[in-house]
């Protein structure tokens, strides 16, 4: 027999906590006001870092707005572009699905800074550089593949037969979509949207190369890591928030299944 010891259980929880606790403490670190070495605990907590982040005139606030706007726009457009492709893939109607998957996913593995730099060359010529539109296009290379693959996992024989039944009962295209298709694939749709948002939200290399003049959250965050750690922690907490939200949604869905 293989024995599962109590030690192993404690070990598993210890590793899980060690992995996750630093991210939780990040929020705490953003309230540190004064922390002179070698004190173990900060001497004073306060809102200094947050007042810098939320103040008008710093790059942080526009960065937050720009990152959210670009992530929302990229994800929304990606969902529309992905829908027919995800459907064809999910219903296994393609003769060579591997080819489509390879074409879609290959770019994801190529460094974003490389893709961004190559795209910037075109955007400069087209007068698009330093615009939110350029950022959306560049992020699309990384967002669209995830959205297609996650959305495809929702489609299949079951959804198809539900739709056929609705059609037989006289539901038009719009009704069918609203009352049958979307509710049927809702979990995959939610995951695809969340993942798309997260991928765009986390883009550094493409944002730096394509949108040099536009404040984006990760680009604004980097210099603060050395210059002002509490501000980095505050920006980092905001940067982390969507991932935590995604994790909660994913684990709730998991429990429902």
């Amino acid at each position, binding site marked *: *027999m*293989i024995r599962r010891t109590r030690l192993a*259980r404690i*070990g*598993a929880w210890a*590793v*899980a906590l060690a*992995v996750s606790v*630093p*991210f939780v403490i990040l929020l705490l670190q953003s309230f540190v006001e004064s*922390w002179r*070495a*070698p004190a*173990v605990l900060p001497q004073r907590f306060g809102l200094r870092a947050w007042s810098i982040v939320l103040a008008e005139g710093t790059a942080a606030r526009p960065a937050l707005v720009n990152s959210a706007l670009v992530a929302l726009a990229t994800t929304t457009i990606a969902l529309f*572009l*992905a829908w027919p*492709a995800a459907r*064809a*893939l999910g*219903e296994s*109607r*393609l*003769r060579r699905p*591997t080819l489509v998957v390879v*074409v879609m996913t*290959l770019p994801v*593995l*190529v*460094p974003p*800074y*490389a*893709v*961004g*730099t*190559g*795209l*910037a*060359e075109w955007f400069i010529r087209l007068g698009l550089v330093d615009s939110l539109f350029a950022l959306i*296009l560049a992020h*699309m*290379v990384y967002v*669209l593949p995830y959205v297609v693959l996650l959305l495809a996992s929702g489609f299949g024989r079951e959804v198809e037969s539900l*739709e*056929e039944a609705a059609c037989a009962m006289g539901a038009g295209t719009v009704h069918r979509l609203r009352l049958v298709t979307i509710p049927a694939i809702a979990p995959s749709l939610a995951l695809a949207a969340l993942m798309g948002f997260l991928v765009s939200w*986390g883009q*550094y*290399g493409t944002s730096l190369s394509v949108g040099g003049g536009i404040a984006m959250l*990760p680009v604004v965050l*980097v210099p603060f*890591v050395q210059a002002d750690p509490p501000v*980095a*922690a505050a920006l*980092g907490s905001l*940067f*982390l928030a969507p*991932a935590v939200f*995604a*994790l909660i949604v*994913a*684990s709730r869905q998991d429990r429902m299944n």
Partner: protein
Amino acid sequence: MRRVPAAVAVLPACMIIVALFGGALVGAVRTSLEPGPAGLAGEVSLDAWRAILTDPAFLDSLLFTSWITLASTAISMIVAVGLAHLIRGRRRALWALFGLPVPVPHLLVAVVVVLWIGPAGVVDRLAGALPFELIRDRAGLGIMLVYVLKEAPFLTLLIVAVLGPEVRAREEAAATMGAGPLQRLRWVVWPRIAAPLSFGSLIVAAFVFGSFEVPLVVGPTYPKTLAVLALDAARTSELDGQARSASILLVTAAVTIVCALLLVRRARADE
């Protein structure tokens, strides 16, 4: 119900990707062929390629990037196998805690690492000054730590997904026949996890090879990873900076594309 043919349905998504990605590669190649300071505008030249291939900083960077790629991937794989063994069959809440780094951006993991083990970080204060330097060290240990923290949980979840109760039953059977833990790992568990693990590891390797924001935050000033070297080249005032930057980035793109094609061949072989 009318149906759009499948080949037409995939066109919008595929065309966008092919146009943007293909365009990016063409753009980078064109930039890399721009002549250096001695050449005439509009001329095609290999000056930038010659310059990077003879630059010792480029060769150091290539070696350094390959080293952190291989080391981070190998360590993540080993850690993942161990962790999968530890968490399989346990509660979902544990998996969720454990999976926290998976959706978190790489940059954020790097920020957390600096706040904990960087100079005047949490660990420094708890333990006194650390006897070794992990942040901005020449061996790239800080970069490797970030990638292991982020990617080992990802690989673990990939493995745990294929280790269902039936594998446990086989292990039990092997154990009653006298197989030790290592033998069970080799003959029962490994055949199950080999495919997802190697698939995941190639993805991890491609990510590490292109690492950019992580070394910017925790990497040494020398040697740099290829992407950071490209950033430096693009930011110099030298005339051929952009061309050299594009050449370096094309090298990273080529390596990751080869990685990806290996992945495809593997997947084909498994089909």
